[in-house]
Structure formats: C-alpha cells, structure tokens
C-alpha cells in the first residue's frame, strides 16, 4: 500500500513538475533569441516582445523551480532504500545539477529580472543566455540520472556488499539512452515553448491584429517546424535503443504478446487489451511499421511479452515483469498522434508565412490558440511511456521498485503528503493558468511596464519588480 501510494505521489509530482520544465527551457531560449534580435537591430518591437514573453517565463519558472525541490526530496523521503543503495551513482548528477546548473539559472534569472537598468545591454543579454544555457544543462544532469535508471551503466557490483558502485562517470554521460533521450527532451521543450508563444501570438492577432505579434508567431513557427520534425525522428530512434535495452517497454507499447519474427505490423487503435486481455481487436494495421519503429528494419523481429516474461523469470526469479500494457499502448499512441497533429499545424503555419497570410487566417489562429494544450499532453504521455515501461524495475534489471521504498514511512504519512501536494498543486495550477492567460492577453504596451520600472507612483520607487 505504501509503495503504490509512493508511486502515485512520485508520478503525480513528476508529471506536474514537467508541465513547467519544458516551458522554462524552451521559453528561456526563445526570449534570449528575441532579446538578441533587439540587441542587434534595436527594433523596439523586439524589446516589447522580450518583456511580454519574459513575464510569462518568470511566472512559469516560479512553479517549475519549487516543484523540482519536491522531486529532489522525494528520493530520500519515499525511496530511501533506493537512495542508500544507488545514491553513490544517482546522487552524483543531481549534486552536479545543483552546482553547475541550478546556481547559474537562479542567480542569472534574478540578475536578468532586476538588471534592466543596472547593467549594460550586453551583460544583460548575456544573463538571459546564461539562464537558457543553465536550464539546458540542468536537463542534461537530470536526464543522465534518469537514463541510468533506464539502462544502468558505469558501475561495478561490490563483491562483499552486492551494492552497485560508480566506476566510470563518463559512461553515465555517454549512455546511449541518455544521449537520445536528452536531445528528445530538449526538442520537446522547444516544441512546447514555441506552441505557447504561437498560442499567445495567435490570440493577440485574432483580437488586436497587432503586427508585432506576426513577428512572434513567425519566430514560434520557425523554431517549431524543425523541432517537431527532429523530435519525431529522435523519438523513433530512442524507441529502437529502448527496444534493445528495455524490450518489455516496446513490446508493451504495441501490446505484442507473442514474438513476431519479422514484418511486424503496427495497430492504429485497438479495442480491449491490457494485462488480462492478450487478444484485443486491433483496428487498421500498418504492415512492417512496428518492425521499423523497433529495429529500423522492415524485417526486424519484435520479442513478445510472454517470451520476455519467461526469460526474465529464468534470469531474475519468479515474478511479474510485464509493465501495465494499457498505459504503454495508449501513451505511445497519444504521444505519436498528437505530435503528428502538431506537425500538421506547424506546416500549415509555414505555408501561411510563405503566403504572408499568418495574421489573416482566422481558422488557423483559432486552432493555433487551442493547440497550446497539445504539447502538455504529448509530454505527459511520453513520460508515462518511459517510466511506466520501466516497471516493475526502479533500476532496469538491477533493482525492483518494491525494494526501493522507504521502510520507515507509513501509508498514513504518504496519504497525508499526497493530499497535501495534490491540494496545493491543484490550487497553483489554477493560479498559474490564470496568470499565464491573463498576461498573454495583455497588450504589448502593458507588457512594457513590467520587468523594470513598474507604474507605481510614477517613478517614486524604481525597479519595483516584486
């Protein structure tokens, strides 16, 4: 019971945290681009846009940072046996994140927010770039730690204690799962932030036809198109790598119960399915696509869940090694299909830019506004696919999730914390959504007033940012 609750808590707090993370990573980059453009061309529109989207960035960072704290604490609070067993490996990237990335991000974000009239233009621009670099560095360390759980490398098992011990830090940072998933996450962050920027711009263009937002919308689409295409490609390559190291994850994503020798087809939808239904009704099968996705070859074979289960029982002893198939199957599809929808919107937008009609197509602007929901669903589905697919392992083939939980923490205590976090997170989700929408709908002139001298008592007190 305490274990399931701890898993629920970790899942909820991680998914919640990752609503804000990609916006922060992507928007810091986009705001840095806008400010660079202003720095170079002295175009006042770019400065206004920098402040407009900078405000959204700051609103978003506030929650992103504090929910990340919850993650760091939870390893020790809820997963103490995991932490003591592998902390010498897993803790390293986390400590490095704090020292190399988090200090940089927090310090220079403060400098950037308060530094508009304190710093030279060049140093002020450098500070937003420092923030952007820091957010990407931060993601690198977290993804290195996470990838170690997906595919543990760079350790030896202590002959006396049986404990895994770090013996090659470079292996941690050259882990193929890390390299591909890190790029995948960065691209997803760019997609997310570009869609946030596009949505705000589209809303503004529909309501106000302020030409400045054509520039913002164009920047969003210019970033979005390559990011979403590369993200699809990298994601599919990541699937091939995972099929090698975590075959259960991929077999479950396709509900492939029995090994398919080659030319395995991919089902668009199925009715039924799940861990107790090995023969769901599969609808519209695309020949050979699964083989391509899992092995990069039309003739590749895909191992089945039943065969993998038998292998795992032989290797690791009796137990159920099959993840929740329903979650795997559908999270994979939600991710892929919605990413395709994003691609379609991106290409449509590109065509409108080409025709110089971005501000005129009411239908596109309406869809682009609502499309802001899509990346959050895609990201969430992607993480569910990655994390649920690792179960029942907390570290793939090395440590079971059930062995990682804190023995001294009772179910009651986890209930209390779960209710506390969910309650507070729900409140702040509403507050954040309200503020993001409110500040996305302000006119560009209003945005100008924030982030430096605020309009209190006309110049009485300067730089009242808070």
């Amino acid at each position, binding site marked *: 019971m305490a274990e399931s609750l701890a898993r629920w808590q970790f899942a909820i707090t991680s998914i919640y945290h990752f609503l804000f993370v990609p916006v922060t990573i992507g928007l810091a980059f986009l705001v840095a681009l806008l400010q660079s453009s202003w720095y170079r061309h002295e175009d006042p529109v770019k400065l206004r846009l920098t402040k407009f989207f900078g405000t959204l960035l700051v609103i978003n960072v506030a929650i992103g940072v504090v929910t990340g704290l919850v993650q760091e604490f939870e390893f020790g*609070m809820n997963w103490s046996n995991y932490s003591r067993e592998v902390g010498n490996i897993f803790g390293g990237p986390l400590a490095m994140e704090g020292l190399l990335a988090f200090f940089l991000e927090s*310090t220079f974000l403060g400098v950037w927010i308060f530094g508009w009239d304190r710093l030279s233009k060049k140093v002020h621009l450098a500070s937003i770039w420092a923030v952007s670099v820091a957010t990407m560095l931060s993601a690198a360390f977290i993804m290195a730690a996470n990838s170690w759980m997906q595919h543990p490398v760079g350790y030896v098992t202590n002959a006396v204690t049986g404990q895994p011990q*770090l013996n090659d830090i470079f292996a941690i940072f050259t882990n193929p799962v890390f390299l591909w998933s890190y790029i995948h996450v960065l691209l997803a962050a760019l997609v997310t932030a570009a869609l946030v920027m596009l949505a705000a711009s589209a809303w503004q263009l529909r309501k106000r036809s302020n030409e400045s937002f054509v520039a913002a919308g164009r920047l969003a689409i210019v970033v979005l198109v390559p990011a979403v295409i590369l993200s699809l490609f990298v994601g599919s390559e990541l699937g091939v790598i995972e099929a090698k190291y975590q075959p259960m994850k991929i077999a479950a994503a396709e509900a492939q119960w029995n090994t398919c020798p080659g030319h395995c087809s991919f089902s668009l939808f199925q009715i039924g399915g799940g861990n107790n239904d090995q023969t769901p009704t599969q609808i519209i099968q695309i020949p050979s696509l699964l083989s391509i996705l899992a092995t990069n070859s039309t003739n590749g074979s895909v191992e089945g869940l039943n065969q993998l289960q038998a292998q795992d029982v032989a290797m690791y002893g009796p137990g159920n090694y099959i993840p929740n198939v329903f979650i795997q199957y559908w999270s994979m599809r939600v991710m892929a299909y919605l990413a395709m929808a994003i691609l379609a919107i991106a290409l449509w937008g590109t065509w409108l830019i080409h025709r110089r009609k971005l501000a005129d197509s009411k239908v596109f602007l309406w869809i682009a506004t609502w499309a802001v929901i899509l990346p959050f669903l895609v990201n969430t589905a992607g993480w569910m696919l990655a994390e649920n697919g690792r179960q029942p392992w907390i570290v793939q083939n090395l440590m079971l999730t059930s062995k990682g939980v804190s023995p001294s923490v009772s179910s009651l205590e986890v209930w209390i914390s779960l209710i506390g976090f969910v309650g507070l997170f729900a409140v702040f989700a509403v507050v954040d959504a309200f503020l993001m929408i409110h500040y996305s709908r302000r006119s560009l002139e209003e945005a100008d007033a924030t982030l430096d001298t605020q309009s209190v008592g006309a110049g009485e007190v300067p730089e009242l940012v808070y």
Partner: protein
Amino acid sequence: MTLGQLWLLIDVVFWVGFFVLEGFDFGVGILHSFVARNDVERRICINSIGPVWDGNEVWLIVAGAVIFAAFPLWYATMFSTFYLALVVLLLALIVRGVAFEYTRKVDDPRWQTTFRWFLTVGSALIPLLVGVALGDLLHGLPLDSDHQYTGNFFGLLTPFGLMSGVTMLALSVLMGANYLTLKTTGELHARVAKLSVTAGWVTAVVVWGFVTWAHLGLGKGFVPNVTEVIALLGVLAAALFANAGAEGWAFASAALGVAGTVATFFAEMYPKVMVATNSVNSITVGNSASPSYTLKVMTIVAVVFFPVVLVYQTWTYVVFRRRLGGGRLGADAALDSPSSPAADPVES
C-alpha cells in the same frame, strides 16, 4: 583528511552558506510584514532581496544533493525520518517561492495580502523546521540496527530540536534586520536599525541558551567548542556594532554568529552525522560515505566549479549594492544609470 571528512566539511560550508544568505532572505520575508508601514516600504523590503533570494536558496538544494551523492545512507535515513516535517517544509518552500513572483502580478488587495502572508509565514517556517531537523540529528533519534527510524512524527519534536529551530529562526530575523539596515534609507532605515539592536540582544540570549544546551546539556563537558564561542561572540558583536551604528560590521558579525551556530551542530556530533539514541546505530562519516571513486569525481567537479559560483554570486551583490528608498532616488538614478536603456527606444 579522508575524502569523507572533506565532503562533510564541504557540506557544512553549504549549510553555513544557506543559513547566512537565505537567512537574511528569510529574515526580510518575515520582517517585511511588520516593519514596513506602507506598501512602498514593503516593496522596498522585498526588492532588496529580489535579485538574490533564488540563487541563495540553491545553497539548500546543493547541501541536500551533496548529502545524497556523498553520504547516501545519511540522506536516505534523514529524509525518510523527517518525512512529515519535510512535507511541511516543501509546502512552505513552494508557497514562499511562488509568492515572490506572484504577489504583484494581480492588482487586487486580497490577492496581494494572501501572497504576502504566504511569504511571511513560509519564511518563518523554513528556518524553524530545518533548525529542528539539525537539532534532532545532534540530539539523537531512535534508529534500529538497519539505521531506520522507529519513532513517529511527534518523536521528532525533541525539546533540543525545538530549541535549535527557535535559534535558527532568531538568527534569521537578526540577519534580516541587519540586511535591511544596509539596504534601506530614511524612516524605514531608522526603524530597522533600531530593530537590529534589539534583535541582536534577544538572539544573543537565545544563542547562549542553545550553545549551553548543545554542549553542557548534551554532556559534552565544560569547555565549549570553538564553534560555540564564535557563535556567541558573533551575535554579541552584532548587537554591539548595531548599537554603535556600524552597519557593515554588525551584518558581518551576525553572519559569523550564524556560521558558528550551524557549525556547532556538526562539530558536536562529529564523527557522527546523525546520532541514534542507541549509539551503535548512529550514522557516521565512515559508515555512510560513498565509495572513493564517487567522492573523487565530486571533488574534481567541486574544485573546478564552486569557485566560479562564488565569483558570479558575489558579482550580483556588487551589481545590486545600492540602497533602496524614496529619499535618495534622484541622486542614485543620476549616478548609477545614465539613461534607462530599457525605456528609451520604446517610448520614442
């Protein structure tokens, strides 16, 4: 010195850094609801820490992450032991962090008052709770032979732990008062300068009680540790300097008092890092340190990058060194910013 000892020392440096830097942020967060007479003064208080509080909070994160990487057993036991206390701590960190950014984002008195109190209460709860936890580490808690905590939430509220919490809270208020004295002008400055003196004397009494309990009370003999002497002298000097109007010295002395107090927790229990009531079950540097490879990697990373962090964090204090306040604005604006680069091209 073994690598384990080195990393304990590094971790103590992070705890000290956290309580010195974020200490005055907490103090300002608490005090701004009481010393400021109007909205402008409240904003001056909060803006005095605005550019730096987030960077300061990272010291806590790194202090925790260092324990995770360098002393996994200690991290695992400590964080699972203090479970519910840490939940409250996290909720406080969340509402306080969000309050900084959100208070002024909506022009509504009820909204602003709500977030202001989030900030005030959060700022008080965090040093209090972390102080209780540090006190408990030194006082001792029931751990079994597997180093798992066998008590419940109420078992964490040891009298010495509570005293430690109050001590860290008092020190934070002292730091906040001294910081505001350095950063403000006019009437507000006069008020916080006076408060620095009072806070100095009150905190001196609290710290005296704390060091006496930590040393004599926990049976460590009569002659105090050097950290305890530093703690007490630092706070006393803070009160005297504040009384004499030597604001910079008062602030530095208070920081020394904080450093001595934080170091006392670790010095008094060394080589233990988490005392068990049944002493053999205690967690020590020796039984919790990571294998030497991990510590070597961490040492290289820290030696290369920590000085860089110190340089740029120090730089931010130089950039934002100016006092904030209504009276001195004209002169300052003329001195510091020839023209507002942000505003000019926009308004043309």
